[in-house]
């Protein structure tokens, strides 16, 4: 009864916040991280005790960030959706194996990274790893991602330019080696700490640093080819 009340309150709380809690922005503050950790632990415990309703809260809380990780890694909007679904399904099935050594969100994002890797591997014949050519600007007839417009006051031309720029950057990221791309995404786009990346990717801290250094230099070269002068 108590757990049901707790879930209900949390659901009401989340729905009142437009259903999609901005987990990413909340995680950027220390207070937010602590709060997030506490709340996750609570619902994770409920899930582990056999309350599937509690998992819905975790889905609503983390799906957007997971989707962004998946999208940046695969470069495909639809694939990203599939990856997130598979990752959540996998997390739900194995949630009892989560022992709390790391934050639940770290564990969850590690899962989505793995699923995105698998998706990239499966689509090996597709041009995930081909560098973007200036002559072939990325064109998306369908499945175009719905970018959050920075402001409604920005002129339409600027929005289009911005969108095109971002797609080119995305193309450059996807043109990097897989391990370089994912570490750029986790560190420079999603803003995870070195420690979190270490836990997600299962690599030592020194490797994170050296890999990140190489990845940034590689991306710099790639972007210079696309944009000329940065």
């Amino acid at each position: 009864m108590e757990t049901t009340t707790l879930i209900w309150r949390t659901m009401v709380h989340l729905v009142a916040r437009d259903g999609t809690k901005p987990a990413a922005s909340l995680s950027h503050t220390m207070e937010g991280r602590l709060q997030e950790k506490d709340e996750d632990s609570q619902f994770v415990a409920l899930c582990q005790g056999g309350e599937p309703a509690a998992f819905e809260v975790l889905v609503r809380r983390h799906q957007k960030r997971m989707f962004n990780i998946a999208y940046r890694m695969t470069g495909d909007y639809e694939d990203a959706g599939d990856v997130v679904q598979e990752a959540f399904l996998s997390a739900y099935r194995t949630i009892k194996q989560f022992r709390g050594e790391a934050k639940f969100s770290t564990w969850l994002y590690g899962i989505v990274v793995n699923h995105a890797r698998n998706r990239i591997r499966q689509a090996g014949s597709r041009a995930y790893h081909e560098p973007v050519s200036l002559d072939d600007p990325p064109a998306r007839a369908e499945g175009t991602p719905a970018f959050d417009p920075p402001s409604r006051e920005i002129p339409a031309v600027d929005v289009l330019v911005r969108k095109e720029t971002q797609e080119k950057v995305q193309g450059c990221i996807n043109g990097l080696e897989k391990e370089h791309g994912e570490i750029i995404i986790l560190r420079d786009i999603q803003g995870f700490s070195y420690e979190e990346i270490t836990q997600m990717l299962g690599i030592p801290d020194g490797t994170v640093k050296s890999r990140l250094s190489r990845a940034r230099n590689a991306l710099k070269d790639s972007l210079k080819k696309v944009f000329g002068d940065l």
Partner: protein
Amino acid sequence: MKQCGDVENQFTAYLDGLLGTGERKIVEEHLSACSHCLRKLEDLRRIQEILAGLDEIDPPPGLTEKILSRIHEGGERKEGFFRKLFFPLHIKIPVQALATVFVVVLSVYIYRSTLPEMGRFERPPMSPQVAEKRSPAVKENVPTERPVISASPEPSLRQTQAGKKEPAQRQAAAPEVAAGASSAPKDNNTAGHSGAVAERVLAPERHAADVPSFSKAAPPPGAGQIRTRGTAVREENSRAPEPVPAPPLRAESPDVRNRIAIISDNPRQTALQAATIIRSLGGTRIEETTKDGIVIVSAWIDTDVLGELKDRLKEIASVDEPKSVFVSGPKSTFIEITIRRTASGHKGNPAGR
């Protein structure tokens, strides 16, 4: 001053604020003097800004519902069955209880279905008195293996082969002999009939056709009946003036279903008369053997004429009613008529016989 390569290696840590004060100062000193490295660092900083400025992308509408429905699908498949069974109590009582009941029911069923067959192989309970009376020599003659019931039930064959100790022959031999028979004279009789044995060893093929019908159609012998016969053996032995060795265990086999015990002054002549009566009543495979002064006439006869047979036997000699056994069975049944000499005519038999 540090080399450019060394400083460039520090750029990542520098940009991420991971350098200590001393290291940061060294890098900054180098940057103030090296425009090449400064430009590289500015590029990296610009890239960081670009990446950090990438828009957050909204997931497709309905993604949450898709995720939850897939979870419920997977969960239903797993939980639908297991939760119903286990969740109410969080323990596996339902399955364990079901398994226990299943095992018990199966055991009872198997026991009941094999009971008739087991009854055939069941050894009649041996009283301690009988066991004590047995001499060691007799015990040695007692076969340790139970005879196979599917062997020919013909008493003569069984009897003649009872003296042989080869396991194969023991298996083929059905073990029933008359109650009260001792093992030593039996061996003598067997030796005396060695010629007949040679002929009858080949007999199983002749009777093979009867065996299945006998074993299948015949009702399972009641355990009480077997015990009654065992008790009869014990009573006879207790009445004997000297401790008479009990017949081999094979003699206690319940193969012989019908038995008529007759007491006569002239057993051999009575046996001839009995054989004639049996033949007149349609009996077949009439055989006569003598063992320990007891003449045994065995035959296959129609069950319906058993009563008439008994009545006609009463006309020629006195029938020992307590020792006579009739059981219902198939149409054609095996009968054994044991003819003993009256007490005055045979010193080995107790008085009153």
